[in-house]
């Protein structure tokens, strides 16, 4: 935003209740833009709520969604078929579109059971108790939880194959009167940031800290 001459000023509001962000804060245009949000496979699921109601910026960052399994009960994940009949855990409020997209329809068809407790710690507790087969979460959130819960010796990260690759985007409500202008603004800003090298500086400082902490 700072890189953009058209933007005179902007404010960032931190609202910890994520479930209110998209609807109503964005849909009612109380807020203009929100981040970070994942983009569902809108080609395959055009009637997904996010696809119907939001515009997505170019990806700001890209991450892997991985399986975290118990060292005592390893599971093979060489193809999607290996997930059939398995029980996965992901806290409430996190997206589930990766379990449906790319023709999977795991939840719709009842091929995979998804358990959604309140916290990450709940998921890892259920993993230890053998109530689920794997925790399915992005690599950074998962690794951080492993470290915080001191579970690094007990949990394996399935590295051979991620559940999905997810981009993180800025979103704007399609009902916002200046929706397209806002979207252009953010994309132009991102592109300028990448050209100037500032994008890389920001990623560098965060990623260096993150990988060191693991």
């Amino acid at each position, binding site marked *: 935003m700072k890189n953009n001459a058209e933007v005179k000023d902007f404010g960032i509001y931190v609202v910890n209740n994520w479930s209110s962000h998209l609807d109503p804060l964005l849909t009612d245009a109380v807020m203009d833009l929100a981040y970070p949000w994942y983009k569902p496979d809108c080609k395959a699921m055009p009637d997904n709520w996010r696809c119907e109601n939001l515009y997505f910026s170019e990806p700001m960052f890209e991450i892997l969604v991985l399986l975290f399994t118990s060292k005592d009960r390893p599971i093979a994940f060489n193809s999607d078929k290996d997930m059939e009949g398995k029980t996965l855990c992901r806290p409430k409020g996190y997206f589930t579109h990766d379990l449906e997209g790319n023709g999977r329809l795991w939840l719709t068809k009842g091929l995979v059971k998804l358990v959604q407790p309140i916290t990450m710690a709940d998921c890892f507790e259920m993993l230890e108790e053998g109530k689920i087969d794997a925790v399915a979460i992005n690599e950074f959130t998962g690794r951080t939880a492993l470290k915080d819960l001191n579970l690094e010796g007990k949990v394996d990260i399935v590295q051979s194959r991620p559940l999905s690759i997810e981009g993180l985007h800025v979103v704007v409500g399609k009902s916002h009167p200046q929706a397209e202008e806002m979207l252009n603004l953010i994309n132009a800003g991102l592109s300028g940031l990448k050209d100037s090298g500032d994008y890389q500086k920001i990623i560098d400082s965060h*990623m260096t800290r993150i990988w060191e902490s693991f």
Partner: protein
Amino acid sequence: MLRRWILSGVLASIAGTSMAQEDCGQTYVLKKGDTLLSVAQEYYQDRGKWSVIYYANEEALGGNLVDLPEGVTLDVPCIDGQKPIVAAMQAEEQPVVKDEEPVAKTEPVQTLQADPTPLLQDNADIKLLTGSNYAPFTQQDWLGGGMFTELVNASFESAPSPLPFSVTWENDWSKHLFPLLDEKKFDMGFPWIRPNCDADPKNERCVNFHFSEPVFEVLELLFAKADSKLGFYDDSDIHGASICRPTGYFIHDLEENGRLWLTNNLIDLVRADSPADCFKMLTDGKVDFVSANEFLGPSTIAEMGKTGAFKAMERALSTSSLHVVISKNHWRGTTNLYRFNAGLEKLKKTPRYSQIVDRHWKVFRDSLK
């Protein structure tokens, strides 16, 4: 012949390289003392094809390249639809085959063609960095830019939802990791040897880069004089021997896996200025063995005009693996790594992998003449 080569190249790329191989090939149960080189020699009459056997059986071998697990059944696949033939059977069917001459009539290398590179373009999503003077792996004026370059191309093509890529040649290798890849002037670089990051986690390559799964394993071999009676069937055979390896080359393999050859003075390591100097010392009887990889050894011998004067031991001394790297701070660090690894894994399960390796072995052999 020319037609067949072009045709197989085109088919491989169009058909997504998934030609059925299930009903082709043979099986072989490993005996004590078998090596990848000896099995390749027996079935393909060509030691250079060891990697075809290795990658067809990577899981069964549990990553072992030097000492193979006894009793394991190996798949010995067909190469270009050519059935592997053991020497004895081959003698009955084709009595005129001369020793060392591969059964499959070799096409002249001039007719070999690199695979098409539909995803290669300028200024693409993924910018790859490599350099020359590393034949047969990467060399700009080599067929397809070298074996490794072709394997990287093919891996990206086999990746889920493939992205276009560009390849830039920078011949000053010292600039590659730092600063070019570290500062993300390029996205991924190749080929790089992975240090032992478990033993040396502070190594700057381990701290700053993600390494892909191994794209190619290079065998480090022991060379002796052609008339030498010395053998290398297990580690104890060379206790007390003197081995020449040029200055600046790695030595960690002489200490690892409980060897401790240097710490316990079990071998006499001699450092010479160059591979050629090592082979001169071998000729003069000053050392028992020269240690060099499967490409550097033969090419040094050929350059010295000494072809036939030395022989390589069939048991490899060690292996080093060559990888693609990406900065840990890259915004697509783990995701691009996965894209590549997934493509590589798929490629290794298809005949295209061995076709590429085989093609470059032929070009490499020809370059020795």
